[in-house]
């Protein structure tokens, strides 16, 4: 996605996903949403990081090849998984005890909109139909840390970081970090802090495509093209 105001190419989905993984901690239990977040798995090299899926598994690391499918081993996105020795299985009650009980350290998921107060809308665009909540409300309301990965703007170039979400909410005041195709943001105390700019981008060009006032300080990082 490139618009005439863009000073440089925006990051692609894999780049966004790769950046998100650098914030994951040792010995943590992680839930990855569908879309960009699911691309994170391939960049996680720390064997102490365990991936959790709502349907009752953690410890998986890759999809099964088509000739090696076991329909009893799937992730929450409906993708069949390869077995590895870290994997364990459990039922949905226990899976959501992990989520609701605060045992998931970080959830990375996509969003239609995120507000500066950390509200997230990611389950329905009303004019498109019924909508699907799945595990998103449980994850957003109960995970210790929420990282949103998304494109910075819609196809119509509207800011997805907003003062107040227009779409129905998934949860309130829960997002800690937003990683978009132009930068890395932290949400803190109703402020949008720009921490890193994508290669070729700077706070002023990012502000131009963002509906919320961006704050930043002298420690702001300008990503190098070789790092992404």
């Amino acid at each position, binding site marked *: 996605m490139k618009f005439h105001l863009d000073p440089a190419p925006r990051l692609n989905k894999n780049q966004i996903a790769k950046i998100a993984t650098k914030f994951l901690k040792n010995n943590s239990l992680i839930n990855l949403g*569908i*879309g960009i977040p699911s691309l994170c798995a391939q960049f996680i090299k720390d064997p102490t990081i365990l991936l959790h*899926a*709502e*349907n*009752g*598994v953690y410890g998986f690391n890759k999809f099964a090849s*088509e000739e090696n*499918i*076991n*329909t*009893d*081993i*799937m*992730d*929450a996105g*409906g993708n*069949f998984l390869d077995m590895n020795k870290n994997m364990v*299985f*459990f*039922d*949905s*009650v226990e*899976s*959501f005890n992990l*989520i*609701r009980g605060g045992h998931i350290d970080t959830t990375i998921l996509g969003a239609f909109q995120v507000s500066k107060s950390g*509200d997230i809308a990611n389950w329905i665009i009303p004019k*498109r*139909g*019924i*909508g*699907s*909540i*799945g*595990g*998103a*409300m*449980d994850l957003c*309301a*109960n995970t210790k840390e929420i990282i949103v990965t998304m494109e910075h703007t819609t196809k119509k170039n509207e800011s997805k970081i907003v003062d107040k979400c227009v779409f*129905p*909410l*998934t*949860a*309130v*005041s829960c997002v800690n970090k937003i990683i978009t195709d132009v930068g890395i943001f932290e949400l803190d105390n109703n402020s949008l802090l720009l921490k890193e700019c994508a290669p070729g981008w700077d706070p002023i060009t990012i502000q131009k495509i963002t509906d919320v006032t961006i704050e930043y300080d002298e420690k702001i990082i300008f990503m190098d093209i070789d790092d992404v």
Partner: protein
Amino acid sequence: MGNQKIYKSFDEAVMDIRSHSSVMIGGFGGSGGQPTRLMLALSKRDIKGLTIIGNVAGISETTGYGWPKNSKPIDQGIFFKKGIANKIICSFPVPASQNPKSHIEKFWLENKDSVEIVPQGTLIEKIRSAGAGIPAFYTSTGVGTIIEKQKEIKFFGKKKYLLEHALSADFALIRANVADENGNLQFLGTSRAFSPAMATASKITIVEVDEIVKVGDLDPNNIHTLGVHINRIVKRRKNDMYP
């Protein structure tokens, strides 16, 4: 117990499910944990007005969700296609990409009250609560969202929670890997999902399994669903057309 719980056919096992019954469908969504043959048998019944309770509700037929490539996905949409259900309680009724429309979406367009969406963790805990004799519990899931509407709210400390009620059903159709003749079940991998909780929350639980073994053949330390919750067992034929 002998083998009084064992039924010879899927048709026979679902024969007494009447119009306007509530029916839980086990698994998560996708082919693995889905009681596909019991669903097919039920879909042939000449009844109407079923309430279906299941998690990922009807997206496999249109998107292939959770089914191997080159298979013919069947999902809970079958009850709406056949016109025998008029209500579904689920967490994920539509695919991320909206076309083509599923049978459930088509029904919903004409009957907006026919689909009740519940957050997945709340849905499984409502079902678990019904089986555990807990009429209601508090959860922070859904606070500040559309889910909060008309729910009782309570603060514990400074945090806000919603009151959620138990959800039971007349029947549960589930799939497991193996049953013993007492009805003790074991599941494989992610095919467990909603099934153990549903078995505790319904008046009659019917299970389709790949294998039936003698009592005592399963490790008593590793029973995933206790036999007291299982009323009927039907064995799947090897190598039929569904995974």
